[in-house]
């Protein structure tokens, strides 16, 4: 299990379209992945769950991955979240 705090750099924050891409990236990994934000904890592979967060640019989330490819998962998601697009 790895946890990492990541600052969202995506220009528009996690709006609907970026969320859809994020979920797609997360779904490529076998590990179970969760996103922790404020007092919420949401499955990163759940599109409706991720939508419900409404995270703006500059805010921080914690990605928690658990499984065989957890390291790659966190790395991959960090890469997307910190891209400016």
């Amino acid at each position: 299990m790895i946890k990492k705090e990541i600052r969202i750099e995506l220009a528009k924050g996690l709006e609907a379209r970026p969320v859809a891409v994020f979920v797609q990236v997360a779904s490529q990994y076998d590990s179970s992945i969760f996103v922790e934000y404020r007092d919420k904890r949401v499955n990163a592979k759940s599109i409706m769950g991720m939508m419900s967060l409404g995270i703006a640019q500059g805010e921080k989330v914690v990605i928690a991955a658990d499984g065989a490819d957890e390291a790659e998962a966190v790395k991959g998601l960090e890469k997307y979240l910190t891209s400016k697009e």
Partner: protein
Amino acid sequence: MARTYVTLEEVAKKLDLTNLTPEIDLSQVKVYHRAINRPAFQLAGFYDYFDNKRIQVMGRAEDMYLQTLTPEERKERFEKMFSYEVPGIIIARGIQPDPEALELAHKHNVPVLSSKHTTALVIVEIIRWINQQLAPSETISGVLVDVFGEGILITGASGIGKSETAIELVKRGHRLVADDVIEILRVDEDVLFGRAPEITRHLVELRGIGVVDIKSLYGVESVREYSPIDMVINLEEWNGQLSYDRLGLNEEYQTILGVDLVKYTIPIRPGRNLAIIIETAAVNHRQKQMGYNAAQELCDRVSEEIRMRNREENQ
């Protein structure tokens, strides 16, 4: 294969016309043109740009004009028009032509037909019907069903379950139009109609059972002769490598006969109830046409949430 002509016999039957020149065999008269001409100018003697290959429709205006002429002049004018080998003349409003005119028509082998309807109605009906008959067409493989009034073309590889899905939809109260082979007509610039070839109409082939007749098994309410095609649902074997549309914000299209149809690709996996998925796609498509897009609504809500949050933080 698209038709290139209709016969005057078909036109007469469709429009309920009376043949005033019964000695002429209408089934041999071919009409290649979709438009009609009103021959007022020609009867007045002006023949430049005369569309002589079109059906000529005469109404009250032509008749009133002809009444101002002497019988000799009338004969002369008709003789001239008939010499252009027009495919046929339709006289509206039940107006009776002179016996001499009919004689001339016979001599030049030009059929004269009569309609009891108004000229405008005759013209609209002829153009609409001929256009429909001569519409560009194509035959494609798939299943066409009418779901809540939306014409849905189900496509996908053979054996993926198109016919089974169609039967399940029929059992849920929807209507089958065609299975396996669908004849598609482009009846208007952006309107496609689909129907089954007569031979396979209302028959469905189910693997393991064979051919079943939907109309006789489930009744008239379970079938439809033809239907517009509003959208395409493509069934595809689930592929873990591919990502499927999760939001429905971006629409895919399939082009048939130059018309772009919205297309949804549905991944098939055991346990997915295809009939319900297709019903939902149909009503959702209808709702979009009515101006509400759920995916867009979600987008807006998320964006609004982010905006509110930014404002809070800036304060």
